[in-house]
């Protein structure tokens, strides 16, 4: 219990007890209507010494780390980065971990990725390209370090986005390289799941590799990697939407017309967490022929895809409480505003929304594209 309180103090800058019990958090939460413990009730229960009740209810796992509650909290309490991970840490230490998450964490600890894939195959996506993507090990220095992160490196669908981004970089004649086999999980989900020691261990190992090479900045299309590298590793990192935006003048001259009605999904760790709203929109709008429509819930009010903070490995826990996944609601919203393409800024969004399209039967009507995929399509002529 002392450990939990210390962790809470540390992660919330001692603010967790300043909760005024207003209930904004629960009202904002995508799972608020289903969870036995909204953040407000969690804080109350902690005050009353009823932590075990929270943990036994599994409410600590019913959180996609979407940051909506935190961004709206009038007392500015770090709920997403503080209260939830602190409670999860206690669950981990007590050995009560949902099975899928447990497997993912074991794999990350052993192999540096959640898929039980060999680290030697981390550059497998690059070998599927018809040009060579240089590794830092060979090149030693490059202007841009492209970091695909685990999903972007191994996941069948997410790899497509990584390849698209690499192709765009090649077209832009950017001097870029990858870490390949030397790359490992950056650990943002690990941290949000309360596995702090593993997060620090990953950070330490990654920093060792980063320090070996010279690069001006990192570019990643994984919003969680972006968040970790920016706010925890303290590195110079651009989200790929920023990178594309920086190169927009050059790109504009090369764009072909596309005939799409596009809506843009604000990923939690770009938008609410890191305030990146306009760059991706400007990139999309600058493609000729594209009709841009907004989700009704957009920018800081955007609904989460459900994958964050380990959510992608907590599906069975979530399903105990909730019938409809947030991603399913989200793709229906896209349909409502008449979009035929959902453009995303985080690789995790892609499988979440594609699954949701299948479940909702919208898979014939709407497709999901990473912003790099859309840009590449415009460059290659639709």
């Amino acid at each position, binding site marked *: 219990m002392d450990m939990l309180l210390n962790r809470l103090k540390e992660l919330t800058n001692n603010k967790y007890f300043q909760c005024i019990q207003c209930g904004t958090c629960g009202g904002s939460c995508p799972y608020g209507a289903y969870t036995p413990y909204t953040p407000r009730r969690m804080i109350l229960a902690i005050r009353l010494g009823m932590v075990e009740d929270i943990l036994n209810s599994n409410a600590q796992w019913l959180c996609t780390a979407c940051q909506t509650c935190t961004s709206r909290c009038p007392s500015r309490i770090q709920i997403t980065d503080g209260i939830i991970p602190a409670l999860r840490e206690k669950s981990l230490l007590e050995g009560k971990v949902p099975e899928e998450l447990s497997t993912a964490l074991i794999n990350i600890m052993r192999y540096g990725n959640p898929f039980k894939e060999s680290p030697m195959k981390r550059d497998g996506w690059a070998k599927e390209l018809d040009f060579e993507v240089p590794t830092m090990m060979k090149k030693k220095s490059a202007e841009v370090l492209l970091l695909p992160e685990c999903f972007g490196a191994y996941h*069948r*669908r997410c790899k497509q986005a990584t390849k698209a981004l690499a192709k765009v970089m090649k077209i832009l004649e950017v001097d870029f390289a990858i870490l390949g086999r030397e790359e490992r999980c950056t650990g943002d989900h690990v941290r949000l799941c309360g596995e702090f020691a593993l997060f620090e261990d990953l950070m330490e190992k990654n920093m060792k590799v980063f320090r070996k090479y010279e690069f001006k900045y990192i570019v990643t299309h994984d919003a969680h990697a972006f968040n970790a590298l920016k706010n925890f590793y303290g590195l110079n990192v651009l989200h790929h939407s920023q990178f594309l935006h920086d190169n927009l003048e050059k790109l504009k001259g090369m764009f072909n017309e596309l005939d799409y009605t596009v809506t843009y999904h604000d990923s939690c760790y770009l938008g609410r967490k890191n305030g990146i709203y306009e760059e991706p929109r400007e990139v999309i709008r600058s493609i000729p022929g594209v009709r841009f429509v907004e989700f009704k819930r957009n920018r800081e009010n955007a609904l989460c895809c459900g994958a964050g903070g380990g959510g992608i490995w907590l*599906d*069975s826990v979530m399903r105990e409480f909730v019938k409809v996944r947030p991603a399913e609601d989200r793709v229906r919203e896209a349909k409502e505003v008449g979009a035929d393409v959902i453009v995303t800024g985080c690789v995790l969004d892609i*499988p979440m929304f*594609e*699954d949701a399209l*299948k*479940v909702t039967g919208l*898979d014939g009507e709407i497709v999901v594209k990473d912003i790099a995929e859309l840009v590449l399509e415009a460059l290659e002529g639709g």
Partner: protein
Amino acid sequence: MILVFGEEFERDVTYELVALAKRLGDYKVVVSEDFDDIDGDVIRVERLNWKVVKELHDRFKPEGVLFANAPSGMDLAPKLAGITGIPMVTNVIKLENGDRFKATSLTYGGKVLVDLEVDKPSIFVVNRGYYDPNEGRGTPKVERLDLDFEDDVELIEVVKPEEDVDISKAEVVVSVGRGIGDESNIELAKELAELLNGVVAGSRPIIDQGWLPKSRQVGRSGKTVTGKVYIALGISGATEHVEGVKAKNVIAVNTDRDAPIFRIAKVGVVADVNELLPVLIEKLREIKS
């Protein structure tokens, strides 16, 4: 002489052992249940436990003993090896007789074969699916032996899964593995199964997840499919799984072209099941209508 111990819980594999034993020389088959079409000398005992195995081994002094890589064989074989100290080879997929036995074992999760020479007498635990069970069928000459030893292990209850279709006898089985990604995609597999007049099944992870009932599990700890076609969707093909696949034609779909499932497939499709299925289903629907 070769002594074959029939498999108590999975009878059909006994015929495969007999088929192998026939190629090795004279043989006797020990069973604890009625088999009326095993070819050759059959010894019928009341029950099969390690004491009976030990007694018959001592009595016949065989040059080789065969067990199945199945629930009862996997218990009795090592016990006998431990007691007698004679050599034992597991996961045998090929066995020849000579001055010594020449055995081939499939190991390292199906990634490695090892050729071995083994002194006599010795014990072999044989994998399923490598010898034709029909070669083991014929007319038995049955001798009853009244060997009834108490064992230190006693079966007190058999818990059967709830009634469901028997995938082991279905002609067409559409089977899904982890590569299916999401539970919702099971519906697609079910639809494909329906279009092909088959049934849906899954690999262990799918059953562990609770996405399909236990009765639909294919593999060592599940059922062995023996029908005409087995369609493996997003199944990597771990040894434990492949052991349960004895369908005449295997069609596998997997994103990884090195997936072990392709080793047993007649037709392999390198594709993401989740991309392929909707298109395939659409085409089949068109043909049907």
